[in-house]
């Protein structure tokens, strides 16, 4: 019997490399309940910590009575700011260059702020202890409106900053002012506005919301007093940065800290920052000598850990009467709450808001952002987004619609005539970015054709006529969006967090028998890194993905990296993975050539082996090469086969997409039903189509939530009105539509495998698409702008305001 020689196609398929919809390796554990999330960690003698939180949004804390709590069975300690002060831990630095109270230091600045930390034998005793702590408050005037916060006689929120006229990002011009960030050419933009045929002006508000992953934030700290080593498990999207921060603020030497991110139950930006709970669990473990766990509940999550958005964006867009955009102006008032705890690269206090020229060739633009303190929870994180790209995309995609109304033009056509053209890439935007690659016209036409755009408009016109004739009470809206993302932060020359350059890393070790382990500086929160990064390695070095173990999140074993958020894993760590693979491949080539007794240049890589050029029957498989690396003395070559790469990306990547939504609005109840949603994404080279599609479904559903109802709302007293999942809208399977996904492929020219990242695109593009659909339904009645979320009563109010109920 003849040996079966696998074909090239079979060998490629066997690798399950890039481009294959490889099933996820993580799922074998997760589907049978064998995940290992923070709250699953149990250590001998472990204690539990729980917070006393402020019921007031702004108050002086005069006395904290802990005596009764200490009498509660099981309660071991009640920690207050006074206990932390001698350690210098009553305040901590934020990622945004501000500082934040760990525990209330004399006053509280938002409802739900941490006041005291009760440590007990278990969570029940800790909760009893929290109940028994009495705190005396003196209420202070509350400011929840960022514009009122900037009035001259507004109450002083941050007394600790009194008299400080210089902040982390330049001058402060008011006691509640944090920073002003300006980009672009103000004078030129104002000149364009003055001379333009048409200028459309609108205030676009992107409301406050929250990432709210299904798993809340938590940590387990274990200080081993014998070895002096602190181990800290936690819901950390950036475990290495957390280790450095813990070392800097605690004084514990960095080599004596091991940070571990176990499985993470969703992050979406919520788990980038450092929280009081992390610090308090560490302190409590040091004080008690025992492991201490802290896990917040859902109300605490929604009330205190990082919110997102809350951007008031005043915009002006100028165009010729034919619709060619000539300039864009934006002034944003950014509500940061009580502390500026947003998680942006240091030099970008408003993140990448300056991507707000979007997909359009806008020659002149100006952006200014004012950060403001209010009596709301701190944060401003990138909720499934790359540092305020969601806000920027929402702004420009609304402004385009507003301009289309002003010009009485079809918004699809207005976009088309203003897109950056394929041949203009790399494209330098007026606000300072170099877009790497794109083909917007192709994507746009494909999308419009796929949905039958002209037919949809005709149907909409008919329905409008029927509405006006009293035959229906439903209106049809067609939402359009063409977004450009900016992800993969980022080049170390301009991207750092707390001085740590935003490179990322991968280390690959090939075992003698030809299997491998790879470790990265990132951490999956559901993205499937263990599956997809193995696919990159498989394609790069010809070892089947199934033979590669992938590890992340343990700072004692993984190479240093800045973590997973801002869609940076594929653009940065994915590139590091490819580069580490290439180092291995280069060495493998030398070994293969030696074994085949030819010159290095005479062998070439072929799927899973090196073959002698022109003699394909002479080859060495990667498996053979791996073994040789460990058992043969190859002159001039070190034994072993491993490599590490720290990848500093030369540029960001710029994924883009064309989304179209059709929805029907019940004018009388304000209910909106999504009839169709088409999403075309171009994320460059596609590593795992199955996972890409899953990311798009998930991101669109988060976008649906945000656009249609999800908000963190406060009353005038600063009470959080949306702190449970009854009022904080997360759609169920019933309210969620099916999505049609599609793609074009425009690789990134500077990324080793051409991949751009995709996880956040559907949120960035989805929110304006849903919102534009709602607006579009009312366009014939004169609506230009109504703020999100488009929940029932707000849609009803819009209809009512347009006289549709009379």
């Amino acid at each position, binding site marked *: 019997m003849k040996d079966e020689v696998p074909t090239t196609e079979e060998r490629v398929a066997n690798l399950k490399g890039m481009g294959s919809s490889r099933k996820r390796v993580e799922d074998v554990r997760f589907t049978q309940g064998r995940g290992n999330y923070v709250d699953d960690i149990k250590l001998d003698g472990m204690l539990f910590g729980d917070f006393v939180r402020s019921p007031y949004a702004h108050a002086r804390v005069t006395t904290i009575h802990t005596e009764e709590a200490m009498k509660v069975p099981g309660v071991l300690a009640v920690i207050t700011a006074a206990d932390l002060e001698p350690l210098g831990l009553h305040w901590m630095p934020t990622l945004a260059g501000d500082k934040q109270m760990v525990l209330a230091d004399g006053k509280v600045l938002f409802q739900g702020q941490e006041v005291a930390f009760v440590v007990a034998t278990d*969570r*029940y005793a*800790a*909760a*009893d202890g929290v*109940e028994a702590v009495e705190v005396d408050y003196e209420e202070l005037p509350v400011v929840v409106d960022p514009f009122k916060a900037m009035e001259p006689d507004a109450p002083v929120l941050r007394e600790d900053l009194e008299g400080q006229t210089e902040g982390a990002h330049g001058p402060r011009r008011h006691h509640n002012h944090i920073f002003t960030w300006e980009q672009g050419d103000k004078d030129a933009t104002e000149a364009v506005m003055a001379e333009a045929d048409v200028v459309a002006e609108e205030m676009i508000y992107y409301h406050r919301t929250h990432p709210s992953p299904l798993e809340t934030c938590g940590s387990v700290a274990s200080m081993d007093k014998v070895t002096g080593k602190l181990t800290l498990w936690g819901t950390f999207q950036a475990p290495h940065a957390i280790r450095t921060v813990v070392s800097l603020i605690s004084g514990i030497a960095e080599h004596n800290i091991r940070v571990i991110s176990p499985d993470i139950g969703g992050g979406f930006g919520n788990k980038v920052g450092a929280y009081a709970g992390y610090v308090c669990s560490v302190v409590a473990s040091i004080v008690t000598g025992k492991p201490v766990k802290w896990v917040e*509940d859902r*109300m605490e999550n929604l009330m205190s850990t990082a919110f997102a958005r809350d951007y008031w964006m005043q915009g002006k867009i100028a165009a010729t009467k034919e619709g060619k955009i000539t300039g864009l102006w934006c002034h944003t008032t950014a509500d940061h709450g009580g502390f500026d705890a947003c998680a942006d690269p240091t030099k970008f206090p408003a993140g990448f808001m300056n991507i707000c020229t979007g997909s359009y060739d806008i020659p002149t633009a100006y952006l200014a952002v004012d950060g403001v303190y209010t009596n709301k929870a701190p944060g401003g994180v990138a909720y499934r987004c790359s540092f305020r790209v969601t806000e920027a995309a929402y702004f420009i995609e609304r402004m385009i619609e507003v301009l289309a109304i002003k010009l009485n033009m079809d918004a699809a056509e207005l976009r088309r005539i203003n897109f950056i053209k394929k041949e203009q890439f790399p494209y330098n935007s007026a606000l300072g970015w170099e877009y790497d690659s794109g083909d917007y016209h192709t994507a746009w036409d494909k999308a419009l054709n796929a949905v039958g755009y002209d037919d949809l408009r005709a149907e909409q016109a008919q329905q409008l006529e029927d509405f006006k004739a009293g035959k229906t009470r439903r209106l049809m809206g067609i939402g359009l969006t063409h977004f450009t993302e900016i992800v993969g932060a980022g080049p170390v020359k301009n991207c750092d967090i707390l001085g740590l350059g935003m490179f990322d890393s991968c280390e690959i070790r090939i075992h003698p028998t030809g299997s491998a382990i790879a470790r990265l500086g990132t951490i999956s929160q559901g993205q499937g890194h263990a599956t997809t990064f193995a696919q990159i390695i498989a394609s790069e070095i010809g070892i089947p993905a199934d033979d590669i173990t992938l590890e992340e999140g343990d700072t004692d074993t993984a190479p240093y990296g800045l973590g997973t958020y801002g869609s940076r894993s594929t653009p940065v760590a994915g590139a590091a993975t490819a580069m580490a693979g290439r180092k291995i491949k280069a060495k493998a080539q030398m070994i293969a050539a030696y074994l085949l007794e030819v010159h290095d240049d005479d062998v070439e890589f072929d799927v899973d082996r090196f073959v002698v050029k022109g003699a394909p029957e002479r080859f060495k498989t990667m498996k053979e090469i791996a073994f040789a690396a460990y058992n043969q003395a190859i002159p001039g070559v070190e034994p072993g086969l491993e490599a590490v790469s720290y990848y500093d990306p030369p540029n960001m990547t710029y994924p883009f997409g064309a989304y179209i939504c059709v929805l029907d609005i019940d004018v*009388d*109840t*304000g*209910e909106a039903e999504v009839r169709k949603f088409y999403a075309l994404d171009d994320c460059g080279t596609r590593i795992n189509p199955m996972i890409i599609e899953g990311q798009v479904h998930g991101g669109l559903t988060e976008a649906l939530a945000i656009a249609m*109802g999800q908000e963190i*709302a406060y009353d005038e007293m600063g009470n959080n*009105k*949306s702190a449970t*999942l*009854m*009022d904080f*809208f997360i*759609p*169920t399977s*019933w*309210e969620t539509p099916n999505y049609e996904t599609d793609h074009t492929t425009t690789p990134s020219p500077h990324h080793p495998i051409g991949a751009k990242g995709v996880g956040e695109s559907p949120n960035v593009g989805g929110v304006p698409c849903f919102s534009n659909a709602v607006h579009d339904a009312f366009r014939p009645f004169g609506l230009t702008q109504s703020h999100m979320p488009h*929940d*029932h*009563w707000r849609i*009803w*109010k819009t209809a*009512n305001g347009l006289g549709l*109920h009379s």
Partner: protein
Amino acid sequence: MIPANFEYHRPSEISAAIGIIQQHGDEARVVAGGHSLIPMMKLRMAEMGHLVDLQDIEELKGIEFSDSSVVMGAMTTQHELIDNADLASRLPILREAALQIADPQVRYMGTVGGNVANGDPGNDMPGLMQCLNATFEVVGPDGRRSIPARDFYEAAYFTAREDEEILTKISIPVPATGTGYAYEKQKRKIGDYATAASAVMIGNGAASIAMTNLSDTPIWSEAAGTALAAGDVDGAVAAALDAIDPQEDMRGPVEFKKHVAGVILRRAIARAQSRVG
């Protein structure tokens, strides 16, 4: 979200349950499915020394049918109610309403008795029971008594049931054949309370209308029913809207709620009329 501690009791006789309540007074509360009470306990907005679990009391279970009425034990779950084909044929409005309550898991645990007894204006069953002119049977230290659903609700969480009484049965007159019915509910998502909801029965010269979550109690409007029975839909809607007093919450402001209450009621009436047979 950890409740305060309590002693747990699971009596198998109603008399034993009442005995425990009598013994501990304010310190004791009964629990049926627990899906209203336990969240309140976890927020420590409800604390008690003694929790009396009613699940083993046979008398509180089962659904009985006679020609003129349906009698449901208070511990009948929403899931059992939805699943009961006989009930669905005699009182289809119950199933229609129950399917709009909470979510599948909650319906396995949530009981009809708990839903009507607890007095939460957000609950769907109280308005429906008023619409159907149901009677609640309660048992206490002084024996049994019946309270019409239309007289049961006094204010949010305040009802005609005394603290030492347990709601045991719900008796619903079976409507005449051909009666049209509808339960219409607007909500933000599965699991939400109503923004506005309305129960309507119409047929054989009579009509009944009740509204849910539009006041601090369910609202049954006799005037609305009378108008509808006379064929005056506008009059019925006007009378019902006159009787409600909605409060602003995250579902929307008062003006909006009043408007959608009218819309939902009209839709309920239209659907009920279409089912008159």
